[in-house]
Every structure is written in C-alpha cells, then in structure tokens.
C-alpha cells in the first residue's frame, strides 16, 4: 500500500489513475460519475451526522422535551450552566475517567500480548487458537454481561470459589465500589478479538530477516520486541487506542445491563453515557441531554485530537509495507 508518511494517521491515497487519463476531460466526467456512487454516503453524512450535530447544538440552548406540552423555549446558556454545577455530571465524568484509566491500557496491552503469543512460530495449531481467542468477541454483549455476572457473583460464582481454594476471600465484584472496575475490565477482555487480529496481521508483516539479524546480534526476547516488533506495530497500537477511547466515551451497555442502569453500587457505575441516557430517555429532558452529548463531543474531539497530535512522536509509519 502506498501510504504517505508523516502527516498523522489519516493519509489515504486516492484512486491511482494513469497520468494520461488524468489530463483528459473524459477523466473529469468520470470523476463526476464517481460522485454519484459516493452519493449515498454524502446524503447519509448530512442526514445522520452533520444536520443532527448542528441540531443537537441548537437543542442545547433550549428546554426541548418530548413529554410536556409547553412550547420549547430558547433558554440561552441555562443548560450549559447547569452542566457545570450538576454534581452528577462531575461524578459520572469522574467514574468514566477512573474506568478509562484502568481499561485503556489493558484494552491495548492484552490483545497485543495475545497476538504476540499467537505469532510464535513454534506454536502449534495457531489458526485454531486465533479463531478461538477471537470467538468471545462475537458473543452478544448482553449475553456476555450475564455470563460474567454469574461467574463473578460474590456467593455462587466460580471465580470466588476458585479464589477460596487458594485461601483468598474473593470480593463481591459487581456490588463493591472498588472491585466493580476490575470486574468491568474482565468483561471487556472478551471484546478484544478485533484488536488482536489486526495486531497479529501487523506482527506477521515484520520480515523475519529482521528477527534473524537481531538474533545474530544476540538480542534478547525483550530487546527483539522493543526494537523490532514494537516500532512496526505502533500504528496498530495507535489505532486500537483510538477505538478503545471511543469505546470508553460510549460505554453504556455493560453497566446498564449489569445493574439495570441504577449506577450501583453507590453511583460507581454511573458512567457519563448512562447519565446522558437517564436525562434524555428516562426523564426526557432532551435539551439538557443534548448539552451533555455536545459536551462529550467537545471532550472527545479534544482528547482524540491530543492523541493524534502525540502520534507524530511515537507512531512510526515508515514501516508500513
């Protein structure tokens, strides 16, 4: 693939066309014909992204709701003022940050470690292992949450039974304000399949001559990973980091199914997305929900922007083959 380098992650070559064809007017006509093929997405972009984005911002300045018969009023910055004084916003943001700090590194390191294990040449039945480690990722999330809710149940779950065999008194995972976060991370481990597969593809793209050369130089396993594998897979680390980050912003299903969206224990699973759902779709306070959503958008753009900016210091694109 002919990726240009150095300008951040999103650099895609546009359809290669021969120079002769480019110059002709025929090519321009063909380009316009191509636009028709792209039209579904362009229309969809305005319908489902651009217009709702703008409308959402406008809603955030109103007291729009779907239940009362009062006409919607423009209330200027009231929603935004409320956002900054609402203790639940602060709490849910803090919950999301805490969980993110724990889950993000694991969301990248765990599939990376699995992939590293599964590309070892001496490993037998590699393809089978790859498929089976991936398999939980296609299990419906709701089912996965119910399964983990069972196996990590404080009284009857297998996890605590096994812990008690080695003399550890297991916590009551999902009803404990502290242990609920590691519990949620465990559930998340079942969703790393995609990340693992593209890590494997990336690690397999490292020419084995590089490993041979490193071995002749007497490099240790860690040195080979650090200086041969790691630089090649940095774009994949970056990509998975971005995807995991978006997952944290949208993190809703697991806490919702696990504790019926109550935010229990004691608000420790009241994630930001859950609070948004509560305001918008339980209290139907949609003006405020739009404000919450837009605030999330601003934060998400800022953080992903920061990540993209940082990419030029640690993501190596020159290795992409």
């Amino acid at each position, binding site marked *: *693939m002919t*990726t240009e380098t150095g300008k951040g992650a*999103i650099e*895609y070559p546009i*359809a290669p*066309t021969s120079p002769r064809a480019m110059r002709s007017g025929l090519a321009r006509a063909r380009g316009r*014909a*191509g636009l028709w*093929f*792209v039209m579904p*997405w362009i*229309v*969809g972009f305005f*319908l*489902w*992204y651009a217009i*709702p*984005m703008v*409308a959402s911002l406008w*809603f955030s300045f109103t007291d729009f709701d779907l239940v009362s018969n009062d006409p919607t009023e423009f209330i200027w910055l009231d929603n935004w003022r409320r956002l900054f004084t609402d203790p639940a916003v602060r709490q849910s943001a803090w919950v999301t940050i805490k969980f993110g700090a724990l889950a993000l590194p694991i969301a990248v390191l765990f599939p990376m470690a699995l992939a590293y294990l599964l*590309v*070892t*040449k*001496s490993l037998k039945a590699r393809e089978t292992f790859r498929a*089976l480690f*991936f*398999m*939980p990722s*296609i299990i*419906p*999330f709701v*089912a996965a949450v119910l*399964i*983990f809710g*069972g*196996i990590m*149940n404080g009284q*009857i*779950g*297998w996890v605590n039974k096994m812990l008690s065999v080695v003399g550890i008194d297991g916590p009551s995972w999902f009803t404990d304000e502290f242990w609920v976060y590691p519990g949620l991370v465990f559930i998340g481990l079942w969703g790393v399949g995609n990340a693992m597969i*593209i890590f494997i*593809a*990336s690690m397999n793209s490292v020419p*084995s001559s590089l490993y041979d050369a490193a071995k002749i130089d007497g490099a240790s396993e860690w040195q080979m990973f650090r200086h041969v594998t790691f630089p090649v897979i940095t774009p*994949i680390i970056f990509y998975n980091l*971005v*995807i995991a980050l*978006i997952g944290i912003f949208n993190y*809703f*299903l697991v806490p919702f199914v696990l504790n019926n969206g109550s935010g229990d224990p004691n608000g420790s699973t009241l994630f930001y*997305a859950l609070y*948004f759902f509560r305001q*918008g779709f339980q209290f139907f306070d*949609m003006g405020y*929900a*739009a404000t*919450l*959503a837009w605030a*999330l958008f601003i934060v998400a753009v800022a953080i992903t922007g920061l990540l993209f900016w940082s990419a030029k210091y640690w993501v190596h694109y020159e290795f*992409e083959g």
Partner: protein
Amino acid sequence: MTAVLEREKPAQTRPTGRAPQGGKKRFSGWLMTGFTGLALFVFLLPLGYMAVTSLKSEQMITNLGSPILPKSPATFEYEGELLDIYTVPMPDGSERELALYQPRRELSQFIDPADPAAGIVEWEGNWRQLAPAYGLDPQWDNYSRAWDLMDFPLLLRNTLVIAGLGTIGAVGSSILVAYGLARFRIPFGRTIMVVLIATIILPKFTMLVPTYAIFVRIGWVGTWLPLIVPHFFANAFNVFLLRQYFLTIPKELDEAATIDGAGPFRTLWSVILPQMKPAIVAVSLFHFYFAWNDFFEPMIYLSTRPDLQPISVGLRTFNTLFDAQPQLIQSGAMLALIIPVVVFLLAQRVFLQGIDLSGVQK
C-alpha cells in the same frame, strides 16, 4: 469464498512470525502450545460456567455444598422404595457406591445398585459419616422454559428481519461508495475520505437527541425503520474495508470492460462484484453481528413494542424478570449466543480475513 483464500495464500506462506528461541524447538513448541491452551481454557471458562449453570436446578445452585457439575444426590429404587446412594469405603481400601437400605449407627445394610440380586451388603461404621454419591442430572428442561419465557422464536424473527434488511442496505450502499472512492478521481475525494474516517471517532450520542426527535415526529419510533433505513447510507468501516479490497483488484479488468463499452455501473456489476465475494461475505457478516448485538438503539426505538424487539433487548428484559433464577438466565444467554457462535465457527476464515483487511494501513 475461495477467491480470497487464493488471493491471500502468498501472504500466508511468507516466512513471517517470530522464530522460536534456542535450539530445543520441539520442546519449546509443546511448552508454548500447552501454555496457550491453558490460557485459552481460562479465557473461555465463563462459557463453561454458562453451560453448566444452564443445566442446573435451583437446589443445585443454592445448595452451597453441591458439586460443580449439574449433579443430584443419586438414588436407587429398590422394592418400591427410593434409596439414597452413598460412597462407601470397603475394608479392602476400595470405594463402592451403594444404596442405603437399613441405616444403623454401627452396622448399616446396603444394596449394590449394580447388582441388587446379590442382596444385602453389610458395612460397619456410622452411615452419617458417608458422603452422598452424586449422579449427573442435567435439567434440559431449563432450555425449553427459557425458550418459551423469552419467546425466542419471536426474538429470532425480529433479529433476522432487522439484520437481514440492514445487511442488504449496508452492503449495497457501501459497495457503491467504496467503488466510487477506489476507482474514480472524485472532486474533493481526499476530503470525503478524511471526513468518512472522522465519523468513526464521533461519539454516537451526540447525534442521538435530534435523530430521535425526528423519528418521533415522523412516526418511526415503535417501528423497525430507525434500525434499518440509516444503514442504507453506507458506513465508514464497511466502505474502508471494501475500498481496500477494490484496490487489490487489477484496474486492467475495468479498463478492458470500458473498452468493450461497459458503463461504470455495468463494470462494477459484472466485472468487479464477482471478484469481491469474500469481502462482501465479510461485510455481511459484520453487519449481521452488529445487528445481533445492537442494543441501545433497538431499546430506545422499540421500548413500547416488546413484540418487535430483537434478541439483545429481549434477553436483557428476560434478565430483569428472572434475575433470581441463574439457571434460566444462563440458558437464555446460551440461546442468544449459539447462532452467532456457530456461524462464526463455520465462516471464521472469511470473517478474520475481513478484519485483517480492515486493519491494513491503520
């Protein structure tokens, strides 16, 4: 399906991957495989928990002393009476599973269930110190109860309709868009590509309030339309994956078709699409899994219509109703995941290659 396999063969036979360390290759190979197998076992253990729990009775779950597997204390019918079976240590050091016929504190009488005709077996000792023997007693009935209680056929129908129509829209529209981006010099092509990828990063909730309000206004809430129609406008993941695949198909094919007088649409339909089968299968599978999994939007758009809800929403409702009966919940989870898992195991090659493809260049 075979096309992608052939296409990607060179990649698979390329000498890649890390070579094993040291000289004892075979030993390290088995060690690695054993370790990986153990890791896999732990990783999939929750599935074992689900399977085992789904076959238990309520007593087996609540009685803390009962075994891991769905077992009940074994009994044996003798002369019209149900006798409990115990594990009895014999004088010669062996153990026999015997049915307790006459419980006594010092000298109890047993019957051997394997050979009742042999008559009474006497055993010295207090029968109360004997451990009851358990026999496998799976409660298959849990599955039919979960099936009926959650109305599985209805949930399945709803899921398949939503997934099927959505897949048609998602695949069809994404093919058109990917073709346009891969094969034409479109005005603002580069901008379109960047914006397309940027939509992946947007938190989906930002667009939700106005979209929901509009769907309420036009009467789509309480129907399947909000879950199907938006997929007819292509999405970034599919377009990106298909575009990558288009780029691997030689342009000479298009040019030959053009020289033969085929227009762009005809070229796509009769020259390129036949080559795209694996990618199309992969994208279809992705949408199938997406729809099977999708929870938030079906929940808000179909909250008033349980008869239209797909499986993920139905399973969650089932959980809120039968929370206190883990065996039913786990049976329900099994019902919800068995079809996706079987489909995956059958189609895993195409599926995983599709993900490989989407990961190129990232």
